[in-house]
């Protein structure tokens, strides 16, 4: 049996990496991610974790060094957010294309300008097509659990892809929450030692990252796309296994009071917990509302989402980022595209809320639901609107 300890969620993420016995951490400080790598530096300095800690000079080099260490066959971990993630942009695509199973925490924060260190999802939404598996945590325990899950999935020989575990900056990363920390033995049972499928080894020389001429580039992209789509099976399997060992159960798409609901909200990340409370309050008032929470963002859980929305009239998607000049928030656009052509699909309405650290309150959820009901009555399907923006 493990222990239940109150700790900052960032520390819990670092503790998960420690329990995974990572070999290499290459990281660069950035708010609000810093506590994760600070704690890992401490663990290494105190000899509690036997790993190489590479204090790189930028996030670009952080991920580059991670690719190097993963290619050398080492279990590799890093963390970043916002501008740091944007600086990694170029290398993100290469990490997945080279099939290096790196695990990275992304502590979601708004992108500049204006410079803003607070939470939204504009950083991660800019990287949705980079070929990484992407999961979103709602609370501290989930951050811990998804980190262990990430190593297990990334290193699965049917997968071999890098994974980002997303957690909301400050709102989640800096909270102190009770976390169940399992025993080392339990973790080892869940997460076997990393056995690289290929590595840079002088006894068996390989060339990684050759020039991809036009005759092979399409095939290379197809291979990656197939791998990402096919990773859903092992992702779900690893969650099932997690439930068996640790007693906590996760699914790609979670539903909350969706039975017979006319209106559904759809959220990702920590606002889902506020949304659940909002649903409870509205249900008490007799509003027929439910909530869908996306935990898995890449690969996109198409079937699970379609099943979850069945029977609803209206789906209000809550985005935490703007797709500037686009047809809707990034999540909303994808959800629309996923449901398009589905018979009796719900009307999809887009709401963008909680940008750059602005609170998303219970009242806001109620407002979104009421507005959705109104739009539905009018038969209207707007593209998107920014909730609470001052029109003075």
């Amino acid at each position, binding site marked *: 049996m493990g222990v239940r300890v109150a700790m900052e969620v960032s520390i819990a993420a670092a503790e998960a990496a420690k329990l995974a016995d990572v070999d290499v951490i290459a990281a660069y400080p950035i708010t609000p991610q810093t506590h994760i790598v600070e704690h890992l530096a401490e663990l290494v300095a105190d000899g509690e974790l036997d790993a190489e800690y590479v204090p790189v000079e930028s996030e670009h080099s952080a991920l580059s060094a991670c690719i190097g260490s993963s290619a050398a066959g080492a279990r590799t971990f890093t963390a970043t957010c916002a501008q740091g993630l944007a600086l990694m942009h170029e290398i993100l695509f290469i990490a997945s*294309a080279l*099939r290096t199973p790196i695990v990275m925490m992304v502590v979601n924060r708004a992108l500049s300008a204006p410079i803003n260190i607070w939470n939204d999802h504009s950083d991660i939404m800019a990287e949705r097509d980079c070929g990484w598996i992407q999961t979103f945590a709602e609370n501290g325990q989930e951050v811990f659990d998804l980190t262990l899950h990430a190593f297990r999935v990334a290193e699965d020989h049917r997968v071999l892809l890098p994974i980002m575990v997303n957690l909301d900056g400050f709102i989640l990363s800096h909270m102190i929450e009770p976390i169940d920390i399992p025993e080392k033995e339990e973790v080892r049972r869940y997460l076997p030692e990393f056995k690289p499928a*290929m590595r840079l080894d002088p006894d068996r*020389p*390989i*060339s990684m990252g050759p020039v991809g001429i036009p*005759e092979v580039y399409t*095939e290379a992209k197809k*291979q990656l796309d197939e791998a990402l789509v096919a990773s859903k099976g092992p992702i779900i399997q690893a969650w099932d296994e997690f439930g068996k060992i640790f007693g906590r159960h996760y699914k790609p798409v979670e539903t909350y009071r969706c039975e017979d609901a006319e209106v559904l909200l759809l959220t990702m990340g920590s606002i889902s917990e506020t949304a659940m409370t909002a649903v409870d309050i509205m249900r008490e008032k007799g509003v027929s509302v439910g909530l869908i929470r996306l935990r898995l963002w890449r690969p996109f859980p198409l079937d699970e989402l379609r099943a979850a929305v069945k029977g609803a009239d209206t789906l209000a998607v809550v985005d935490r980022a703007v797709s500037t000049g686009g047809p809707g928030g990034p999540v909303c656009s994808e959800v629309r595209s996923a449901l398009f052509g589905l018979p009796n699909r719900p009307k999809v309405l887009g709401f963008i809320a909680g940008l750059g650290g602005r609170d998303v309150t219970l009242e806001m959820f109620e407002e979104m639901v009421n507005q959705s009901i109104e739009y539905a009555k009018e038969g209207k399907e707007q593209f998107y609107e920014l909730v609470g923006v001052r029109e003075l």
Partner: protein
Amino acid sequence: MKASEKTGGIIGWKDLELGCALIEPGTSKGFKTGDWRSQRPVTDKEKCIRCGLCWILCPDMAYRPTEDGFFDSDGNYCKGCGICARECPTDAIAMIREE
């Protein structure tokens, strides 16, 4: 089938190695750069002192040591740059135009 066994990069996505890696070393040997050549080196063995400069200074790894201590240029790879002829200390190598 391994990627390298098919030439010209004509290969289906299922046959690609993980992440497009090339798992067999040194396969560029299958690519004959000799047909780029417009002139080829010819060594006069009378003049050759078997110093090996032509071999060590060849950017195309085209020279091979022979059993009797001389160095032969491999027409499969020699691009005809002429470095060996210019650097030969006894002027034993002449560049001859390819027909």
